């Protein structure tokens, strides 16, 4: 169960505004990336978002480039979850790989107003707000292992060890 304050966004929030290209070549630690999260999309979020906050968006969140900093910077900023009507394909994979919680909910725009608090029951796939209860889609069974391992790096290490063990 997670709970947090809501930041709202519209449709088609792209990777260039989530993590601007001008920072993609700056060698920086993962933690430092959080500072630039959504800088070109919403300056209020960029300056005021706190760890545990939740993003709610429309369709096609994370469209555009393959830069995985777009997922990593949100994770490092402490975003507890991104709930959207839909995600762009590369961002979806990057979020799984980085261990960022992303939830597909067809009624995302109705869940809450900006600044309200909501809770997410990840076991039962339900989001609760003052406006009601909303269901989100569980992760496909195939990626459960990846999600449970906390991302692709720990998952790959784990799988390679298992394969070593079988030999």
């Amino acid at each position, binding site marked *: 169960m997670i709970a947090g304050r809501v930041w709202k966004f519209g449709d088609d929030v792209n990777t260039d505004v989530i993590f601007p290209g001008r920072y993609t*070549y700056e*060698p920086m630690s993962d933690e430092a990336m959080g500072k630039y999260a959504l800088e070109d999309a919403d300056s209020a979020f960029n300056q005021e978002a706190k760890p545990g906050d939740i993003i709610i968006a429309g369709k*096609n969140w994370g469209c555009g*480039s393959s830069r*995985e900093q777009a997922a990593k910077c949100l994770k490092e900023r402490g975003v507890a979850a991104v709930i959207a009507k839909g995600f762009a*394909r590369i961002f979806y*994979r990057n979020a799984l790989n980085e261990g960022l919680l992303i939830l597909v909910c067809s009624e995302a725009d109705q869940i809450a107003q900006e600044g309200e608090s909501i809770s997410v029951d990840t076991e039962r796939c339900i989001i609760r707000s003052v406006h009601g209860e909303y269901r989100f889609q569980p992760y496909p069974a*195939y990626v459960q292992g990846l999600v449970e391992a906390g991302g692709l*790096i720990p998952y*790959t290490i784990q799988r390679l060890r298992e394969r070593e063990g079988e030999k």
Partner: protein
Amino acid sequence: MGYTFAEKLIARKAHQEVHAGDCVIVDVDVMMASDTTGPIAIRAFENMGGKRLAKKGSTVFVLDHATPCPNERIAGLHDLIRTFCREQGSVFFDQNCGVCHQVMLENRIVREGDLVLGGDSHTCSYGAVGAFSTGVGSTDLGAAMLTGKTWLRVPETTRIELTGALRHGVYAKDAILKIIGDLTSDGVTYQSVEFAGDGFARFTQEEATTVCNMTIEMGGKNGVFVSALTDPSLIPDADARYNRVLCYRAEEIVPMISCPHTVDNVKTVVEAAGTKIEVAYIGSCTNGRLSDLAVAAEILKGRHAAPGVRLMVCPASNLILKQAAALGYLDTFIDAGATIVTPGCSLCVGTLGGVPADGENVLSTTNRNFKGRMGNNKANIYLASPATAAVSALAGVITDPREVMAR
């Protein structure tokens, strides 16, 4: 029930029968990273315990996004890639080559039937030669570099058929912008796209690359030109199952333009005509090939960009730069007042020169017009064909190329 291209190719790489919706582990034939995604891919490879590349002869690094190197920090990243490639014996293209996708195609590194992962979203370009190619993040790429494999969800497919021939002054870019405008930015999310019909079969490989390159701009996983397929076991079956089949008539397509700040905000050039521009940019993995420069040179020959317009031209590779010089195109561009910039990603991603000022309008032949894309989030970017960019540079306002080219 038959199979789509995606099902046939993924079945081959997964060594099992597959259907859309299945998740499978596949062999990866070619892996590519640029200087923007390469350093993180290398770090991920090492963090997973990587010592040796699974397929060093088909792991490719291309320096193209920030070349020549603008500062010491990026110099460090370039050095990291050079050192890794030297130690691992992987394929390496330094700053003097060009945009990664053009480099991959002109060096024939990608072939029909290959499954390609690239650390760049426009990796979908290689469908122009019959490959299944898709963009991934650096960590996915690092895992593939280590294991030679990746997991994929077998995509559903949308088939887009074009019949007939494009009219004079209308180009491949106009066709794909028209399609993106209709399908919108997430119209084919998670899907494979087959470009088919006698209209697309008329396209040259360069034109096909322009179309496949922009498949990602409507959410696609990959795009493929059916006419590029010669292997009968990869050609989609007549009774394959498609999500949607769309049909376009080439002669009905007119010059199109993407308006700020989303690629699917597409209008006809006629609708946007008269809008003042400060920058015209001809280049990129979408439209920086020799045929694109030829169209622009024909329009610009003996003319000069309008006062107040900064015209910039970037051949997509050093080979194209050399060819453009030999054919006299560079003379034409220079006489037209153009700034010729180093082959590479250049202005497109805003990490090098040519950054527009606040409030300026840029007409670019690239593939994205997101806010901040070219380095300034207060500039406005329009996307169109090289012909539209060239005639608009002459006029100083967005102009339909058919007005000039008919004369």
